[in-house]
């Protein structure tokens, strides 16, 4: 009988149920989409912040002091220590390899131009294919220095083509496709590089070209690593040597800039890895601000959705006083009537919640695709939680209205004086 009451109520008052159900669906849908976006925004913005370039630098452990003023290196290229190029693929063997989006080795040398001028030449990877085990990985300055722009084409890492900085190219009067002689061998100019920095006055070529000019195959001066990191907290700043086993494990297994640098140092022999504080530190602040903002906006959205659903449910029940009167006149107890309405609310909450969850997940995916060009997916684990919340909210919205409906004198209700 009870089930039939509920069933008939849904069948005969389809319009009203549809209105209340639509409110629940919308509320849950927006809540789901906002939760999905808020939980994923840290990851997405972290990727966008990689536009600032590398946040960790690896240098030889026993290096001499850098003599650098305004980005121009005054140290003789043969001075100091080097890293070994063959050690670099090991970067992708560290625990946080999936957080490392790319790395670029650098080797500054001086190249001899035909007019007996010495010009700085920077050897690096552009978009080099590195095979590591079965995995293939493409890395280089195009990932770690995304603000570098090339007019013409990027050189192939296996070729001997070079890029000319835009000021240098203007000074020498070269265009993409021209030939240029560097330290006695001919190279093709693949493109003109514009960075807004000192590279505009330099030549940038594949690493092997710089190594050949220096006469030291396999040598790398430093490696820039672009990694996705977690904002620094008190644990991150502690010295790993002073930690106990469990704390150390937690530190080691969190993607702090410090712990990723520590692992890089372990992976590459005789190296020293350090966070580039300008990028790494500020990334943490910006990230935590944005995450906080989205969290609060989501909270506000959840409250708004809950109140809207409550209001819609309250309206739906107020409409049905006459029904309550009839039930009471026929001898239904208060508990029975309350149970009936709560069962209806639960059913609405469940159906609306499920539809809303599906809609919200679609919405979140669309937002992710159109804004970040990447998937935002919501964990299916959240479904039962969101359903429970939806039912709870519909209950809360109905409770006051149900109480008043139950207390209402059936005589008035039946006479239509509601």
């Amino acid at each position, binding site marked *: 009988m009870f089930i039939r009451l509920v069933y008939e109520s849904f069948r005969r008052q389809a319009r*009203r149920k549809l*209105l*209340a159900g*639509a*409110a629940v669906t*919308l*509320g849950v*849908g*927006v809540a789901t*989409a*906002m939760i999905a*976006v808020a939980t994923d925004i840290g990851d997405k913005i972290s990727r*966008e*912040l990689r*536009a*600032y370039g590398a946040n*960790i*630098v690896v240098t030889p452990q026993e290096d001499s*002091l*850098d*003599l650098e*003023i*305004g980005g121009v290196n005054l140290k003789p290229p043969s001075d100091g220590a080097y890293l070994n190029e063959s050690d670099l693929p090991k970067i992708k063997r560290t625990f946080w390899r999936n957080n490392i989006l790319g790395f670029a080795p650098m080797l500054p040398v001086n190249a001899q131009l035909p007019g007996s001028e010495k010009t700085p030449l920077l050897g690096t990877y552009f978009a080099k294919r590195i095979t590591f085990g079965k995995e293939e990985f493409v890395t280089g300055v195009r990932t770690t*220095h*995304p*603000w570098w722009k090339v007019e013409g084409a990027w050189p192939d890492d296996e070729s001997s083509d070079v890029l000319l900085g835009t000021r240098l190219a203007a000074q020498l009067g070269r265009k993409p496709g021209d030939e240029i002689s560097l330290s006695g061998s001919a190279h093709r100019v693949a493109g003109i590089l514009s*960075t*807004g*920095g000192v590279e505009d006055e330099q030549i940038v070529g594949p690493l092997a070209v710089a190594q050949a000019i220096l006469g030291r195959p396999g040598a790398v001066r430093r490696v820039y690593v672009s990694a996705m990191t977690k904002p620094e907290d008190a644990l991150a700043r502690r010295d790993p040597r002073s930690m106990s086993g469990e704390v150390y494990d937690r530190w080691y297994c969190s993607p702090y800039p410090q712990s990723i640098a520590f692992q890089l140092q372990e992976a590459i022999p005789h190296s020293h890895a350090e966070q*580039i*504080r*300008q990028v790494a530190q*500020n990334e943490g*602040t*910006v990230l935590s*601000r*944005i995450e906080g*903002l*989205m969290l*609060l*906006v989501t909270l*506000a*959205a959840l409250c*708004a959705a809950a*109140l*809207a*659903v*409550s*209001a*819609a449910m309250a*309206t739906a029940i*107020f*409409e049905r006083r*006459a029904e309550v009167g009839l039930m009471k006149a026929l001898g239904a107890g208060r508990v029975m009537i309350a149970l009936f309405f709560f069962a209806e609310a639960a059913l609405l909450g469940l159906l609306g919640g499920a539809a809303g969850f599906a809609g919200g997940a679609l*919405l979140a995916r669309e*937002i992710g695709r*159109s*804004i970040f060009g990447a998937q935002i997916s919501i964990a299916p684990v959240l479904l039962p939680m969101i359903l429970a919340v939806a039912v709870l909210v519909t209950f809360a919205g109905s409770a006051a209205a149900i109480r*008043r409906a139950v207390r209402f004198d059936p005589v008035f209700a039946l006479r*239509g004086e509601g």
Partner: protein
Amino acid sequence: MSESRAPEAARRRDPARRTSMFLRMMLRAAVLRRGRAASALLAMVVAAAAATAMLNLYVDVQAKLRREFRNYGANVVVVGRDGKALPASAVQAISSTVGARGLAVPFAYVVARTGSGQPVVVAGTDFSLARRLNGWWAVSNWPTGPQQALVGSRAAPAVSPNGGPFDLSFQGKTAHLTAVGTLQTGAAEDSRVYLALNDFEAWTGVQPSTVEIAVSGSSKEISAMTQALAASLPEAEVRPVRQIMEGEAQVLGKMRNTLLASAVLIIATAALCVLATLIGWVYDRRRDFAIMKALGAPERVLNGFFAAEAGVLGAVGAVLGFVLGVGIAAWIGRVNFHAPVAPRFGVFPVIAAGSILVALLSAVLPISLLRRVEPANILRGE
């Protein structure tokens, strides 16, 4: 028949009394059905508050985030051409051009030699400005007195292995310095020694060659500033720092779009829920509608009555919601950015118009449905 007599009677009546009757009907409707009226109003207030908060945030958050991005340091650099020093008046000129919109910090560089003959880069700067510009510098102790130096973490073992006083020489002149703190940045600064600018100039006689500038504002404002600087300093090069500018533009753009999408979602949901609630409310009062019609109220008065009711509800909801929404936005600003989001009163007309429009729409829809129905049918409860 009764329909033609009633308006005549109404016309004969005193207009003031008619107005008071109109008001009384509205007031009684609100008081007698306060539960229903309250839930409709609640929905209205929530929607208006959500819309206000989101619009306020959308306008204000960009400025707040821009301020956060200024922590990345200089976004414009002025350097002397070919590494030459800037003219003596340049630093002053740049500071006055930038004004309160940003921060301009001079830097001067030489390569000096340590006691053991090792070359090291020595920089002179204004410590109090550098500290504000480069918040990411990890400094153990900032120098305050004369002849005090800030030593980079990699330079420290070379210049002052035991942390005590040390000598540096440049072109035959020797400076006696004390290392009071170490500096760590993970970049070129680690290999340098920093001195106060007046100590540096007295020792080397070299003027600043670089001025690093952090300007906040949109990219248009910043490029206007760079052009102004370039025009006033023909002997210097003014370069925007592309790494900083492009990173900021990219992240800000994405964030703006995310907030916009959230705002649209939230406002649309809130408006639809209000619509659903109000339609239910008006539809539920079909009995009132039928009685009024049976008593001979002309359609114009009936429509006017329901429209006025909806309008009042929308207006009251908009005012309450605006106040609440401004409060929510200010709270979010305080909690997250440690600075309140200033209320934008320009948003209010939009909110008010939107609220009243939604309320009117939800009154008009059911009324136009009811108009075709005979009052007798409604009163019989069909």
